[in-house]
């Protein structure tokens, strides 16, 4: 039988592809070796300089004018700024400011400004972060552009830098993005708000809350916890009777603080959305008394576990209700789920953790 396949040309082609693949693999191996050499050479240079940088940065936190920083080469500059950013993140107040002075005295602020405009994302991020720590006003325009029009990570890094440079002005510029950009996580914004403190963020938060934007109100309401509670509370509680938006109601219930809010809290206990009923259960436990017993017992029979759990927790903390009365309530509960949940809440109250030495 004659050979079916392959022809000599096809064999030659297969061999050529095999050789081609091997050649590419060899090129990749050379690339790995080169990458290693470059990385090692760079790491050695940085390692040699890094101890000196650390000493200089530590000294500069005391007195930047007396600190001698050896000249830093173009290739080592990103590594130095990464280290400087690390120092900045772990310092506050005057020590952080002195580190900034060190950069200016050594002309490194010019590199920071240049990095913000670099094509490399890595260098841009190093520059943006450093500009924020430096409170570099000259970078404002470029940072604003990046914050409003850049991609997720870059825009947020720029927003963070703006908030460090001039918080109040930045909050005005960034207000629509803070509420509207869902790719800016609340956790990250929250960490900045925490850093800025209630003195700075309360005013802008109140302004944003009063505007009551249709899009992103739930985000602002959540961020409101970083403001002064008394000023925020007045606004948010006012929404309890006029909003059907779930997140707004939940936030409002978190702020209820006296008897005058009880009608809203009781109304929310009948809401169709379970998370609102859960927030109502928590609120009633905080501000309620014997008069709210019936509502809480009703919530104790809720189909959702979490509503029952918080109703039971609230019952164990309700003003004027004695422990033996809770036991009686548990024993007389006709609903087995309610009785079990009350047992759990009572056990949690009695639970004594052991302190580890």
């Amino acid at each position, binding site marked *: 039988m004659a050979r079916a396949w*392959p022809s000599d040309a096809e064999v030659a082609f297969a061999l050529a592809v095999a050789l081609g693949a091997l050649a590419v693999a060899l090129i990749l191996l050379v690339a790995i070796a080169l990458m290693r050499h470059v990385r090692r050479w760079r790491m050695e240079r940085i390692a040699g300089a890094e101890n000196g940088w650390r000493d200089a940065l530590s000294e500069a936190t005391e007195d930047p004018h007396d600190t001698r920083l050896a000249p830093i080469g173009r290739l080592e500059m990103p590594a130095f700024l990464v280290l400087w950013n690390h120092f900045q993140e772990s310092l506050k107040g005057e020590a952080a400011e002195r580190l900034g002075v060190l950069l200016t005295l050594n002309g490194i602020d010019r590199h920071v400004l240049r990095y913000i405009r670099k094509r490399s994302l890595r260098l841009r991020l190093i520059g943006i972060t450093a500009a924020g720590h430096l409170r570099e006003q000259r970078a404002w325009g470029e940072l604003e552009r990046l914050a409003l029009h850049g991609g997720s990570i870059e825009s947020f890094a720029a927003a963070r830098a703006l908030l460090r440079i001039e918080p109040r002005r930045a909050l005005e510029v960034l207000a629509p993005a803070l509420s509207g950009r869902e790719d800016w996580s609340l956790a990250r914004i929250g960490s900045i708000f925490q850093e800025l403190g209630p003195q700075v963020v309360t005013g802008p938060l109140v302004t944003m809350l009063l505007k009551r934007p249709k899009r992103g109100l739930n985000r602002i309401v959540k961020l409101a916890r970083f403001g002064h509670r008394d000023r925020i509370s007045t606004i948010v509680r006012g929404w309890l009777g006029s909003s059907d938006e779930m997140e707004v109601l939940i936030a409002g219930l978190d702020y209820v603080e006296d008897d005058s809010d009880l009608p809203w809290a009781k109304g929310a206990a009948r809401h169709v959305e379970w998370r609102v009923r859960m927030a109502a259960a928590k609120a009633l436990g905080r501000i309620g008394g014997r008069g709210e017993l019936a509502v809480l017992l009703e919530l104790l029979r809720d189909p959702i576990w979490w509503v029952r759990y918080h109703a039971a927790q609230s019952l164990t903390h309700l003003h004027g209700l004695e422990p033996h009365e809770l036991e009686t309530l548990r024993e007389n509960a006709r609903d087995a789920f309610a009785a079990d949940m009350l047992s759990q809440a009572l056990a949690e109250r009695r639970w004594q953790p*052991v302190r580890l030495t």
Partner: protein
Amino acid sequence: MRTFILGLEWFFLLYFVLINVGYIALNLLAIPSLRRKTALRPLEDLPPVYSGFEPPVSLLVPAYNEEATIASSVRSLLQLDYPEFEIVVINDGSKDGTLEALKQAFQLEGFPEVYWRRINAQPIRTIYHSRTHANLRVIDKVNGGKADALNVGINASRFPLFCAMDADSILQRDSLRRVIEPFLDDPTAIASGGTVRIANGCTVSAGNLERVELPRNFLALLQIVEYLRAFLFGRMGWATIDAVLIISGAFGVFRKDAVVEAGGYKADTIGEDMELIVRLHRVMRARGEPYKIHFVPDPICWTEAPESLAVLKGQRIRWQRGLCESLHKNRDLLKTHGAGGPPGLLAYPFFMVFECYGPLIEVAGYVFMTAMFLVGQISGLAFGAFLALAFSLGFLLSVSALLLEEYAFHLYPRFSQMGMLICVAIAENLGYRQLVTYWRLIGLTRWLRGARSTWGTMTRKGSWQK
């Protein structure tokens, strides 16, 4: 006859071309994501600042006969760097002293907790709370397998995200923080997983990874290159086009309500981790809801690889059966009338052809070509060309994985380490990959025969643990 043989030859050739083009495409897709990852490092490596908005997480640790290691595993989990998390250990009817070891180490006491059974699972016996750690609970339940144990964990968990993991997964202190980052930035995130690396040879102390080294065992070394290929361009490439079909059961985080709505883990499935991901794709796409399954390329979880052929064989057979089950149980992902998107239109067919039935075609291809050579239908030169092509493309893919590792992570910094990995990249093509393909074929046939699934037990040596 001649036409039939010719047709078969072209079929095998076409398969060979397509699978390699597919892998090279995944490799190219992974490059921009890894480039971006390295660019973001100056930000990601800054000390974390927590705001209180980070979603709390329930770490679900299913345990079956883990008496020797469970206490130290839980201790290392308690040290994770994350603002709010709870640990829920689910003792799945262990026959050894797993529960006793936990009771002793963490002063456990039975607690009258109300159990919310949202997903069907085997009954629980007792829920224990720890007197020493407020965020630790242990659930003792009737044996039902890992998937069933995870379902009980989901039912008992208190937080909106849960992390499914193996009791013996080795984590770094920042592992949880890194794998949860996608949930902070993306409100549509429903799952996130990361790269699993091999811990053999590394120094592990009290459940935490301290130093990365290569293993001395040759079989474990072979698996290092294999894992690099699987994660660095396999999953990373699919992640770039939002088509990840696997998040390792060793460490993955999920949005609880999405998983509960999808029905939780399937207790009758051997590859419950992959099945859940494929089902989540199917369910979310059928509903038309926006969602995203993320993959974090950072090495966040380390696991012990088998060091004996028998154990490795068992593992690969189990993995193959799990893969086949997962794909076939979710065939509808392919039929979502164009709404399947990249997972349904690209990843699913790729996995079905090359990962599920691939071993059958590959083994048949090897047998066919050898037979044709032996009966003189193919010349020695042509047969040699076929083998050379298979070897060189396999080597190229392994080297490209090493390049990605070097570029993005550089976990093996010594020249001797990289030299060793390059030798392994050559050696694995000379028998190992073929052997694994054969084991996968066994897995495929066992799945076709419908053998029953059980807990995936693997003999672990843990000799590198301090």
